[in-house]
């Protein structure tokens, strides 16, 4: 573990008794009290996640001239100021280099949030395709990132960032004065619950972590719960459900790809607009969990592979996602198999968990407060 990178909060995690494990080149907290308890707490109250390992780039310039608009799969010109959007960067074959969220922080200023394990590759890709005159900064080490997620997240955040934070709609961002700094807070997250992502200087992230946890309702949660939460929402995990060898169309993420504009990888996508395999999601018939790399059998025929699988704390059974190359509509019965283990499952349309609070309106906030 000598080479693993550590976030500024590593000693806080140790102090809280977290189980630490390598993730994307980082030593990260997997759990504190337990994955199921943290998962359930996030769905009902509010949890705090250390996400300092993820990367952030700041890009300044007009996106058409800079080449930025050609790097992402959606049209940056249609993204309003103080809004965020999910999308992809692709290679020439249409394979996914990364999934990312772009923040428009000013007319011609953008922040791009990328996965931890892909920061270097992403930076190289951006630098290669941005015009030389474009101002590109990798601010990953300078910025700390905390995710506050759960139905009670707004109540907790208001105390720190002021009542104005309640005005943020889903996938909007704003600047707020917190701990003497003007920080970005966005109403985003990867859990399906009402939640916020906070970007503060790396020097101050420990103070922010402590302040947020000082509210007794806020409990720390690790990457274990983050993984079960995102899987219940059928959100893909880069490196597992989506990779450089899969396209957004195969991953059933066509709605994040705008084929009416140009971008790197679009010609390849158009050539194979009817993908030969597709990402499906499925619910197991028992508490037994399908796991990464289990085979997927359709009508007894080997049809694909599980990319993500876990026990679902909300549904109390196994759930998962995987690619199949045979038709497999929702409702189809399939078998997940590895050696002697065979798990019966039914193909379903995501998300598995349908009561997430992420998109609830301001009115409903007031009633939950």
């Amino acid at each position, binding site marked *: 573990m000598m080479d693993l990178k550590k976030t500024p909060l590593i000693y806080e995690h140790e102090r809280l008794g977290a*189980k630490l494990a390598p993730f994307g080149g980082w030593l990260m907290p*997997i*759990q504190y009290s*337990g*994955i*199921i*308890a943290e998962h359930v707490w996030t769905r009902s109250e509010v949890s705090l996640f250390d996400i300092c390992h993820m990367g952030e780039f700041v890009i300044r310039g007009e996106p058409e001239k800079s080449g930025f608009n050609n790097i992402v799969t959606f049209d940056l010109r249609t993204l309003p100021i103080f809004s965020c959007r999910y999308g992809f960067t692709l290679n020439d074959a249409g394979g996914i280099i990364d999934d990312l969220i772009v923040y428009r922080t000013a007319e011609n200023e953008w922040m791009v949030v990328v996965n931890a394990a892909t920061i270097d590759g992403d930076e190289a890709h951006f630098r290669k395709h941005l015009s030389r005159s474009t101002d590109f900064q990798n601010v990953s080490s300078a910025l700390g990132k905390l995710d506050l997620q759960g139905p009670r997240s707004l109540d907790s955040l208001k105390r720190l960032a002021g009542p104005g934070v309640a005005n943020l709609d889903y996938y909007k961002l704003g600047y707020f004065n917190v701990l003497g700094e003007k920080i970005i807070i966005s109403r985003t997250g990867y859990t399906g619950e009402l939640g916020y992502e906070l970007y503060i200087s790396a020097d101050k992230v420990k103070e922010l972590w402590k302040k947020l946890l000082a509210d007794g309702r806020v409990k720390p949660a690790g990457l*274990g719960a983050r993984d*079960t939460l995102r899987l219940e929402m059928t959100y893909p995990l880069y490196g597992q459900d989506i990779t450089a060898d899969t396209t957004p169309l195969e991953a059933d993420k066509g709605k994040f790809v705008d084929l009416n504009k140009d971008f790197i990888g679009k010609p390849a996508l158009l050539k194979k607009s009817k993908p030969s395999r597709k990402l499906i999601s499925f619910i197991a018939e*028992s*508490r*037994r*969990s399908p*796991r990464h790399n289990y085979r997927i059998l359709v009508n007894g025929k080997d049809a694909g592979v599980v990319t993500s699988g*876990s*026990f679902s*704390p909300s549904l109390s059974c196994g759930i998962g996602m995987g690619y199949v190359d045979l038709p497999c509509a929702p409702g189809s019965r399939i078998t997940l198999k590895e050696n002697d*283990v065979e798990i019966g499952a039914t193909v379903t349309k995501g998300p598995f968990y349908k009561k997430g609070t992420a998109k609830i309106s301001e009115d409903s906030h007031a009633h939950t407060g």
Partner: protein
Amino acid sequence: MHIPDDLLYTKEHEWVRIKGKTAAIGITDYAQGSLGDITFVDIAKAGNAIEQFKQYATVESVKAASDVYAPVSGKISKINGELAIHPELVNQSPYDKGYFAVVDINNDKDPSRLMSAAEYKKYVEGLS
């Protein structure tokens, strides 16, 4: 970490409580703690023969599935049916309510190949 004095232990973190010719078996407090939230337990059926140090069960936590090995050889006379509905009993009570099975022992030499509580404690301390 709880390591009862009256049990014997394997290097794979299983325990056995021997009473005459029968034995209760399960996984240790250390094992359940390392696995985290246990969500599923699959045990060989009652009537099946099991062999010392060979797999007879699988235990799943949220993140992973692990093999469980028999601390003694014999025939399973009873499995803990409660674990099908409440696998979390293994986390809550690894040596009592979370036992896996009861076995009729058929090899008197098996216990000599296991660790005492004191030996297991030393072994576990050496792992961290």
